[in-house]
């Protein structure tokens, strides 16, 4: 059960990476990248999420089932966001009031 015990050094590296990314995302927020500000902020957040999930939550050692569960959860979040937004972004596209 404890076949995968990562070293403190690895955890420390991941931790330092997370801190650096936090500093970077805060700094980048003050630079005007136009629409890419959102992309940069969320892109960095996804990177941080991956670091925490893969290393701290041990997904890189985990079973296929666990990975499937996580991917399933993210997919369902995507369904919720994407299908609802498909309504909000196409509102008024027909040019008919109230549609």
């Amino acid at each position, binding site marked *: 059960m404890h076949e995968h015990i990562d070293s403190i050094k690895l955890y420390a590296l991941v*931790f330092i990476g997370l801190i650096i990314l936090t500093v970077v995302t805060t700094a980048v927020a003050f630079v005007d990248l136009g629409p890419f500000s959102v992309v940069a902020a969320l892109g960095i957040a996804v990177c941080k999420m991956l670091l925490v999930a893969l290393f701290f939550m041990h997904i890189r050692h985990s079973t296929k089932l666990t990975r499937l569960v996580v991917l399933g959860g993210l997919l369902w*979040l995507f369904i919720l966001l994407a299908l609802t937004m498909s309504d909000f972004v196409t509102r008024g596209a027909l040019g008919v009031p109230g549609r």
Partner: protein
Amino acid sequence: MASQSHVETLALREQFDTAGQQKDASTLGMWLFLITEIMFFGGMFLAYSVYRGIYPTIFAIASTSLNVYIGAANTVVLLCSSFTMVLAVRAAQLGQRRAIIVFLVLTLALGTVFLGVKAYEWKEKFEEHHIPGQAAFHLEGVSADQQGHAQLFFSLYFAMTGLHALHMVIGAGILTVLIFQARRGKFTADYMTPVDVAGLYWHFVDIIWIFLFPLLYLIDRHLK
């Protein structure tokens, strides 16, 4: 399961045949619980996306009323707590009883600091009249007919950070229980599942904040 220790056999609940089966069940159960949490917070992320899409400028102005440095500092505090949490799990894997307790206490302390900073930020919002639903609500730099839209941002801010903080409080409760159990020597290298799944929960709450921070504090900061 030849290496099963005596302690572990005692901790095996009657519905299971082996300790491995019990650990698999606990881990899968926690991951399933975490995806319910993804969907729970997902509803609020959806509301945020919808209203930010409709009122981008107002959201940008409202977002800049938050103190980005406090937010960033608090993010670092939370990341530190994740680091100490993972070290607590590692100590449990190695059966280092004292180290488990030290790292759990550190994690709890950092979590408490985070909550304290959060409380301070909320108090500031009260003083600045940025509380949605109150007659005194007023956001500077926004015209009178758009104050309602600005309230939406703060509604989401309080709902999201509030529910995140609630999860932190629950996490702190779990850590407290674990600390007492660790002091009684409940966890060994062969039986440390509670520490393990509590770690998953703690990191998950951390990940939620990793997204809340840019969405609430950072996006459109440059417009100011």
